[in-house]
């Protein structure tokens, strides 16, 4: 027969100071773990929103980012009538030649200036990105030195507000609008007219890359294969999704460091939980003896103390979730492979909160194991005499 769980809960309530302090210790450990998971999760979801499964990105052979790639107008003429590329309402192929470069603006975090990805593209490129919508202002006009900035850029860079002028290339550019990419990485970019941007960079003929929309997901894969095999074009094509997956690798060092930190903290907190449970066992020696006299078996006492430890740490886990919740939605940034900022928001999901609570329960149970074993092994007579 097992000891009712309410016995354990009441015990936790009676020793509320100790309970709260131990639980808070566990909560902080869980909060650190959740913060790291939320950060990595946020970055992953930002990058996955950015990619359209139908999009194929075409770079120069050997390049692994748009920034170092070179793509010529000649290549574009050969490429845009390839089979498998969808056509827009006007009957033109959905293929967008783009130039990608960097610009520097002072941001909230880096007053000395942080790098931003600057993209020059034609209206077809905007239309192809279905997650991007104009939030404020208007789009840039062809042939004008006008820029439209992503939502995160507008939030994080005081200089990037509608109506302001910024210096880039060979002149001053006016910011005329803000677009929202529904949480995608494009929110960290600045967009302008393809011709104007590339002529300011003196690379009108040799732009950076080309983005095409395939008619369907299967064709997209076939298109990637046929472009890569085309000896004449000499390009490297990949699904936009794979491209963004590659970019997530930036999060790996943070993820590993965070997990190691959380693990070390977990060992520390499980020792603390062990301390609390040993104290609980010591204080309740006579109670344990009484329970044994009443006929509860050794096993049920072991289980009861384990359950108490698990309940204590589950409380800690829940508190940890509460501590980590305010992080949800806070934006931060990370350097991507082209050394510019990608901003994203912490993403605290039910899944990772569950992971946090499970983590807490595991560490609490490990900490409670030895004290519970000690409690179950007490001799009835000595236990009754103690305390």
């Amino acid at each position, binding site marked *: 027969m097992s000891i009712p769980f309410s016995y354990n809960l009441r015990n936790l309530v009676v020793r509320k100071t*100790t309970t709260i302090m131990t639980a808070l210790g566990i909560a902080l450990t869980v909060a650190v773990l959740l913060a790291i998971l939320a950060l990595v999760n946020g970055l992953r979801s930002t990058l996955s929103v950015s990619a359209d499964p139908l999009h194929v990105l075409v770079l120069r052979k050997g390049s692994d980012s748009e920034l*170092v790639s070179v793509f010529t107008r000649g290549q574009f003429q050969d490429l845009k009538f390839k089979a498998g590329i969808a056509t827009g309402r006007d009957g033109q192929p959905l293929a967008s030649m783009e130039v990608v470069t960097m610009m520097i603006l002072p941001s909230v975090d880096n007053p000395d200036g942080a790098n931003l990805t600057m993209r020059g593209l034609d209206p077809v490129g905007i239309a192809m990105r279905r997650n991007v919508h104009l939030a404020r202002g208007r789009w840039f006009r062809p042939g004008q030195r006008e820029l439209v900035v992503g939502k995160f850029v507008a939030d994080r860079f005081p200089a990037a507000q509608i109506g302001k002028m910024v210096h880039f290339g060979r002149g001053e550019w006016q910011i005329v609008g803000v677009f929202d990419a529904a949480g995608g990485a494009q929110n960290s970019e600045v967009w302008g007219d393809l011709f104007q941007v590339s002529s300011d960079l003196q690379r009108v003929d040799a732009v950076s890359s080309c983005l095409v929309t395939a008619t369907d997901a299967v064709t997209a894969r076939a298109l990637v294969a046929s472009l890569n095999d085309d000896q004449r074009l000499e390009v490297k094509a990949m699904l936009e999704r794979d491209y963004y997956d590659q970019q997530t690798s930036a999060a790996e060092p943070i993820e590993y460091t965070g997990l190691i930190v959380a693990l070390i903290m977990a060992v520390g907190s499980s020792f603390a939980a062990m301390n609390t449970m040993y104290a609980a066992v010591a204080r309740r020696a006579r109670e344990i003896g009484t329970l044994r006299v009443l006929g509860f078996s050794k096993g049920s006492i072991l289980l009861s103390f384990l359950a108490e430890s698990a309940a204590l740490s589950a409380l800690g886990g829940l508190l940890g979730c509460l501590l980590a919740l305010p992080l949800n939605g806070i934006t931060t940034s990370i*350097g991507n492979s082209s050394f510019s900022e990608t901003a994203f928001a912490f993403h605290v999901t039910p899944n990772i909160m569950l992971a946090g609570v499970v983590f807490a329960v595991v560490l609490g149970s490990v900490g409670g194991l030895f004290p519970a074993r000690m409690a179950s092994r007490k001799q009835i007579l000595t236990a009754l005499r103690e305390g």
Partner: protein
Amino acid sequence: MFRYLPLVLKNCWRNRRRTILTVASIGISMCLLGVMIAMFHAFYMSDPSPDQALRLVTRNRVSFTVFIPRAYQVQMEHVPGVRAVTVANWFGGVYKDDRDPKNNFARFAIEPEKLFRIYGEYRIPEDQRKAFERDRAGCVVGRDLANLFHFQVGDRIPVTGSVFPGDYEFTVRGIFDSPRASEILYFNNEYLEQSLPEGRRGNVIMYYILIDDPAHSARIAKAIDALFANSTAQTKTESAQAFAVGFLALLGNVKMFLIGISAAVMFTVLLVSANTMAMSVRERGREVGILKTLGFAPGSILGMILGEACAISIAGGTIGYLVSTLLMRLVAKSPFGAYLPAFQPFELPVAVACVLTAAAIGVMSSLVPALSASRTSIVEALRSTD
């Protein structure tokens, strides 16, 4: 004050299991804190090593990924205080299979005759250095890299370019020793220049500069940037140390990361220690009453309990610090270590910071139980059970 030390220590040791668990718990958390403090110190507070203090790095103001002209070099060499300038092109490229992170070691195109002058701390046999200067397709590799791939002098290393297109093959002409992590390969920039198409020549990603005196570094950096302030490619010159920190900052907000984790760890330690002290004082109610009956003043009792907490947390802090120095050694050896500024295994400020933090945590955690114990009346204390 120290009269009561034996009593304090005896008190620490009376519930051995609890003390050991607490010390272990604090020690583990403090070793994390030790690593954080050491990193913070290395990044933001330490003096650069003597050879590093003499180096500046110049790059395009916008980004590493935008070039600056080769023509700048001559002008830079004429700035007063500049001793030597070398091109340093981060080459990137792919060795074997780039999906294995091991293969992504750093590769730089430099000017061989200047490399070992600017990096005075590199040690290389004289004949190997000369062989490297003579062979246009030659390269030198760091000892760590040589050990990793078992490279030997005379081996050929094929690399396919990414930033700079083309297939390259370097012959190992020498292996150098460096006090820092050295998973790095240097090859002749001339080889790169000659392999590039006409239109892409004469571009430089970075310049490494050797200066005459660390005290002049700010002035020289300013003078160099002023030279090109009105050109299309503006430069940014900074000390090698600031450059390393800036490079790391690209990974994210490192400072916030370090401070956030340190705060969480410190608060956890505080809770653990406070919990232990509360438990141990609660058990001792009657004993405190007896001490008071014997004539111990409230102040002495306060001091004894605070001392006990401090002793436990300082023990944990010291153990934690010692473990953290071992951890830092591991961090320095990891590939990540190449981005870290050089640091010593023992830094007095770091050690002092760790132990002081531990002591402060001890005092803070036991203040409440200690005050209440010293304030309870004798009768009350004697009556308490448990």
